């Protein structure tokens, strides 16, 4: 049984007050709060099992390795990967996309080739491609977004051609909450001979994900947006692709051999197998273990239940926001095409004014571009305020939020 009121007891931070008011945390698209189970998993590793992974034979290292790889297995299962070797531990979505841009893009894209993005992308799915395109000489195209925040599917499909080698798209917009039909677009991309990368930062934490059904070639996501710690996330990649790719960074762990060849005066290097080929240096072991615990927590709740709760809460919030005369909400209104993210503005106030006002009453909102400036250009906004929900948010919190916005309107 999914009960947001009951599960709040698992989150120590939700007991605190901010500015003498009970904390209402509506900035979940930026990062989520952590349940005690995740905090305990990270602490347990350091208290009882801490050692480096893979290369040592002692007991602690064996325990650490087993926990670390079991975490990878759990994450692979959570997203429907064929095997855990398809899951690379990274710092988060940004590093995952950079990994693909540098390891695959830099070596496979050349002048004349194209990468297709959209105007609703987070900067982390724009900037790496812009940087690497300047090195490798390929072009970038951007699919349009309608004023209601929906992707222009016709424009996306029309911009795919034989030149397109890769299409990259957010599954869910971090500003508007728009859900893109990535399964449909993966098929269109593949029909055109292009690979398809899904930015799952705002979808993996909120809905059931099956990479095989979606047929994504790559899926990037962050642990801290799904109850896990910061500094850990994952890149899924189809195994054959990962095997064909060059390493991202060099160092320990990602090599099989580094053999100094006396006659040639340099080292001959052979790479480890994926996923370790892409994990240079000591990984965030505790982070991966804690992320796996976050996955277990979400699985106990059931991702269908998580998704249903957020949809119901968003529907309620959207309905109550219509009571406010000076508030304008952006993005799709059809809840089948939208996640629990609501961008809005208040007439006569900047988004930062709105966020500071709410902060005074203990309500945490995000304000600004949310690292998605091009989408704000589409919406013709200087910035926006954003409320974003997760499993522990309640209708009572939405009621309080509306009360505070009403006070703001009257101020």
């Amino acid at each position: 049984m999914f009960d947001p009121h009951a599960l709040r007891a698992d989150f120590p931070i939700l007991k605190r007050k901010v500015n003498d008011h009970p904390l209402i945390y509506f900035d979940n698209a930026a990062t989520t709060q952590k349940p005690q189970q995740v905090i305990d998993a990270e602490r347990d590793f350091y208290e009882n099992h801490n050692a480096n992974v893979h290369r040592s034979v002692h007991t602690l290292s064996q325990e650490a390795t087993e926990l670390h790889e079991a975490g990878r297995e759990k994450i692979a299962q959570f997203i429907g990967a064929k095997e855990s070797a398809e899951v690379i531990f990274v710092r988060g979505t940004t590093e995952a996309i950079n990994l693909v841009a540098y390891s695959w893009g830099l070596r496979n894209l050349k002048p004349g080739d194209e990468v297709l993005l959209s105007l609703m992308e987070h900067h982390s799915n724009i900037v790496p491609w812009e940087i690497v395109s300047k090195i490798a000489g390929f072009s970038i195209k951007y699919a349009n977004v309608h004023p209601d925040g929906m992707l222009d599917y016709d424009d996306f499909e029309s911009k795919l051609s034989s030149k397109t080698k890769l299409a990259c798209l957010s599954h869910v917009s971090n500003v508007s909450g728009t859900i893109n039909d990535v399964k449909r677009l993966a098929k269109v991309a593949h029909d055109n001979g292009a690979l398809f990368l899904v930015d799952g930062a705002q979808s993996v934490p909120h809905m059931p994900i099956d990479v095989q059904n979606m047929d994504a070639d790559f899926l990037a996501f962050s642990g801290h947006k799904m109850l896990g710690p910061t500094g850990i996330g994952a890149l899924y990649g189809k195994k054959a692709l990962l095997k064909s790719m060059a390493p991202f960074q060099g160092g320990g762990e990602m090599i099989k051999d580094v053999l100094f060849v006396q006659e040639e005066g340099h080292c001959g290097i052979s790479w480890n197998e994926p996923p370790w080929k892409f994990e240079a240096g000591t990984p965030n072991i505790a982070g991966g273990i804690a992320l796996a615990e976050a996955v277990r927590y979400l699985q106990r709740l059931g991702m269908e239940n998580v998704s249903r709760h957020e949809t119901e809460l968003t529907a309620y919030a959207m309905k109550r926001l219509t009571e406010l005369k000076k508030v304008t909400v952006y993005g799709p209104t059809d809840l089948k095409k939208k996640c629990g993210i609501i961008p809005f503005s208040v007439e006569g106030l900047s988004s930062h004014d709105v966020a500071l006002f709410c902060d005074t009453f203990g309500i945490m909102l995000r304000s600004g571009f949310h690292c998605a400036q091009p989408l704000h250009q589409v919406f013709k906004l200087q910035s926006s305020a954003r409320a974003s929900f997760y499993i522990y948010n309640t209708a009572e919190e939405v009621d309080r939020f509306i009360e505070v916005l009403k006070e703001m309107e009257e101020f």
Partner: protein
Amino acid sequence: MPTVEDYVARTEGTCGAEKDIIVIFKYEKKEEAIANILKKATLKNSLAGIIYELSFEGRSFRVYTSGKAIFRSIKDKEELNHILTALLL
């Protein structure tokens, strides 16, 4: 002699096309900072003594008793320093 730094923990340019700057007062000095500001700026509106809409030298800004202030359309750090010096000291 007190300085602006005695009162201000941090200033942050906001993310967005607006040229707003958020000033975060030091926790232990926020009440004194707000009292100084209220003495010198013109009060335009107030919400239950926790949020103040103020103006000073033709600029409007808001102060929150949580210890933050938002200054709109500030050109640069020098201009902000000038205003904070006049308001706080």
